[in-house]
């Protein structure tokens, strides 16, 4: 079953065309990792999926619904698309628990008690059961990002977007976040991850997209992309990453 249907996606900022025509379908339960050089349009591609960026042209459908910033039901459509950001973007004025419960209470009209019970379950899942009452400022980067994942999951989304979720982390915290993502993938979550963690992409992805210059320059299974890259650009990129 197709979860996300992207066709003819273009996005420009002023005269600067970032995405130059992307067509791509994502199946339900599929884990897609997006790799590519910085400035290639990976993040913009991801942000178009939940309409944080409005496409200049082309359409994006999630479960058959067109994602459009000006659509009346855009808030409801976004409820089904969780997003995790590079900079975590936890709400600093709310406790960890309230970060997680605010959306279910406001959007799903969930009772406070039920929302808190769900939130505590989610915190246990990401290994932070003891941090429910902490404020975000007291958490490490890795803990913040796990809370951010729990916050997104609280809306029971059918699709999760990860925008370089480990890029702002100290190296020793990358693993704990990737573990949570790996677990999520194993549970069958549909995921699109923009990442620089090639090991993670190789291990967890069903499919890897190599975006370069605003188009999908190459795509395939991790084995195809990492084991047998076709284009020179992808070979060059993988070499550059391997040297780093």
């Amino acid at each position: 079953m197709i979860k996300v249907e992207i066709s003819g996606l273009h996005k420009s900022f002023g005269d600067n065309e970032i995405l130059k025509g992307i067509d791509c379908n994502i199946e339900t339960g599929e884990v897609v990792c997006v790799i590519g050089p910085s400035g290639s349009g990976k993040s913009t591609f991801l942000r178009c999926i939940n309409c944080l960026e409005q496409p200049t042209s082309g359409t994006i459908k999630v479960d058959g619904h067109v994602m459009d910033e000006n659509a009346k039901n855009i808030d409801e459509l976004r409820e089904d698309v969780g997003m995790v950001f590079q900079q975590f973007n936890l709400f600093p004025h709310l406790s960890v628990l309230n970060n997680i419960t605010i959306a279910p209470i406001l959007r799903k009209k969930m009772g406070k008690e039920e929302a808190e019970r769900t939130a505590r379950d989610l915190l246990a899942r990401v290994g932070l059961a003891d941090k429910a009452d902490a404020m975000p400022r007291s958490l490490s980067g890795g803990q913040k990002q796990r809370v951010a994942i729990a916050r997104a999951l609280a809306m029971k989304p059918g699709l999760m977007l990860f925008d370089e979720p480990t890029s702002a982390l100290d190296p020793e915290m990358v693993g704990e976040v990737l573990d949570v993502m790996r677990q999520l993938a194993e549970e069958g979550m549909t995921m699109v991850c923009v990442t620089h963690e090639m090991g993670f992409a190789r291990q967890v992805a069903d499919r890897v997209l190599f975006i370069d210059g605003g188009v999908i320059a190459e795509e395939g299974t991790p084995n195809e992309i990492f084991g047998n890259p076709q284009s020179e650009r992808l070979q060059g990129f993988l070499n550059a990453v391997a040297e780093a």
Partner: protein
Amino acid sequence: MSFFELLSQSLPLLMQGLSLTLELAAVSLAIAMVLGIIASLMGMSKNPVFRAINRAFVAIIRGTPLLVQGFFIYFGITGVLGVRMSAFTAGVIALSLNAGGYMSEIFRGGIQAVDPGQTEAARSLGLSKSQTTWRIVIPQAIRICIPSVVNQWCITIKDTSIISVLGFAELTKIGQQIIARTFRSFEVWIMVGILYFVVIYLLTVLAHVVERKVSLD
């Protein structure tokens, strides 16, 4: 007359003046806060007419002296419209418009200083625009604004002394009256100065406590 005689004679009068000063400042600042919020929302509105109104308002307030604004309201407007207005009312209008203009910019700055990532995170969870504004952005903007708002409060409290020329007996005016009787400029201005200082010092201490209490760092 010894200093202490002067003090014991003057203090009751000065305290009366101070209470009028505080009344004037409190009423004006309360109105200015509401005005500032409305004006800042207009300044950030999608509607270009609202934005233009806000820009003109802020430009006029910033571009003209408070004293001129006060005279214009008390003598200019009342003359043209043929209405009567107490000096206190005119003072409140002038001070609240004046402080409201500056508050408008403070609030706008505070709201725009909230990390755009906060709005993105809230919208990505499905929160509506207004839920995002009131639950996520405003609570953080308020914290950012506190120091500047307190600063404006201090300025407005002291600006009541300027507006006293419209003719009501707040602290500075009472000081002048006492000096006219006693010719003790040096001591009386020190007393007046200390009273302003104490009020503002207490306010800033209180603000500091609040600021620390709600701090997110």
